[in-house]
């Protein structure tokens, strides 16, 4: 089947992820949405690499996974510490600073 469809799928996933970030309150979920966006990127990379017939895209995908993993580490650390301090993982509760 036409690899271009994978691009559409990637775009779709990316959009879903973005929408999730905009809509969801729970920090964890928001973060998962970001991961979803990253993976959408991966899919795009792989697809393009398939189309171009060179491997750069696939390699980049691996880099992305590593980075994403690192992000998870840092992100969860922060979110957890906030959760322990506030007993809530809602991003909206964290709004001491405004205006």
């Amino acid at each position, binding site marked *: 089947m036409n690899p271009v469809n994978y691009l559409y799928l990637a775009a779709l996933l990316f959009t879903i992820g973005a929408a999730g970030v905009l809509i969801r309150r729970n920090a964890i979920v928001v973060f998962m949405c970001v991961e979803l*966006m990253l993976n959408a990127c991966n899919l795009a990379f792989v697809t393009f690499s*398939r189309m171009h*017939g060179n491997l750069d895209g696939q390699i*980049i995908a691996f880099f992305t996974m590593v980075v994403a993993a690192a*992000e998870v580490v840092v992100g969860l650390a*922060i979110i957890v510490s906030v959760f322990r*301090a506030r007993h809530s993982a809602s*991003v909206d509760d964290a709004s001491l*600073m405004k205006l």
Partner: protein
Amino acid sequence: MSSMAVHSMWTTAAEPIAKIPAPHIEYTQLSPVLIVLGAAIVSVLVEAFVPRKGRYHSQVFLSVAALAAAFAAVVGLAAGGYGSTKAHIAAMGAIAVDGPALFLQGTIVLASIVAVFTFAERRLDPADHGHKVDSFAAEAAAVPGSDQEKAAVKAGFTTTEVFPLALFAIAGMLVFPAANDLLTLFVALEVFSLPLYLLCAVARRKRLMSQEAAVKYFLLGAFSSAFLLFGIALLYGYAGSVSYATIARVVDGSIGSVDPALADTMGNDALLLIGFAMVLMGLLFKVGAVPFHMWTPDVYQGAPTPVTGFMAAATKVAAFGALLRLLYVVLPGLTWDWRPVMWGVAIVTMLGGAVVAITQTDIKRLLAYSSIAHAGFLLAGVIAATPSGISSVLFYLGAYSFVTIGAFAVVTLVRDAGGEATHLSKWAGLGRRSPLVAAVFAVFLLAFAGIPLTSGFSGKFAVFKAAADGGAGALVVVGVISSAIAAFFYVRVIVLMFFSEPKADGPTVAVPSVLTSLTITAGVVVTLVLGVAPQYFLDLANQASVFVR
């Protein structure tokens, strides 16, 4: 395209490759980055093995030494002509070693050194249970106000991890403006972002705000980097490569355009443009340009002030470096596409930052908005799209970063019971209480406002001149207007400090150790020198204003 063709591609791609050439790395030319990275790793080991009481000193020494060495390396490379004649692409096309890269790396390293001084400051707070304390949490992991934290405080723990984190961040920043392919760009971005997220979270006072800042910064940062990455993907899809050089050549059509496989499915320019826009967004986020600026005030306010200063200065330098390289190396052929867009961004950034700053009541937020406005001015220089534009931006970055760090360093000095007294009302009559500190801060504010004989003016003038030369006269006018607006709130602070009566419960001004004093002095000196006799540094910036392709 037919599935057949696809198949054949697949197979060719799947051919077993005869032998992989070993990558060839120019270690000397990467030495600045390598030194800092190495130091970072070592300092992780220090965290692991050196006993607690020894850590602080060893860490401080290690970081400063490493940064000094890195700076030496930068200077050495520049002297070796890598800035001009021998400029070229190193590390298999991953990293560019050229004038802008070296200039910016030098700026970043210097800024980082003074920033690290502020990290290491331990005189501002009174000693706690007989232990000198810096501005970082005793134990970041402990819940604020919990017994665990109290215990940690009692035991005199300090988060010396900030030093390795900072080093990693610096390393990332060094790579960022030098990155010569999008992948390196992305990795470098993450390498300096992730430590910063953490650094934001470890303030000693007002920990909730600090953590909140971290969360916001992290989530939004991740969000933006996702966009960046997707943009990269699209560009890759457009050009079939992530190397700047290749993309540039594809853009100006000097090598065969994109694979016909894509040509018939979507207008490949759409790939290019959308991808470009998303990458741009990722960078503008780091720069703090409207409308991607909203994290700035909250994060600047919440983060520990030394970290704020560090971010405000170094991150901006790195991000603008990357932005310049992207626009000048990758997309010169696209100038007429990105210029109008950047015009818009620059205008809203200048005006937005200046206008909103007027009604701020917290000094750190005020500075945050001022940094946004300054990002706008810098963008005006970027848009010039001329060598003088590049050099002016480089110069501006150098001037600006020192003013910023100095200003935030002063902020750390003004304290009351709850730590730093950042609310403006607390600053009333500071000039009467401690004229010196107030005067120094006034100098920084005047520099921000761009009053002649301060570095702020030289920078602003250089940038506007470049913009006008580059045919962006309208931008200059807008810039002038917004600096007029901006002048208002800088002046407001000065009035507050000097002409209004001190409050009875006003803050005290802590007497800093030699470290912070050094930072502030450096800030003032640079501000005045670059204001009165900027010629030498302008020359530097000029020589450094050629990107290697």
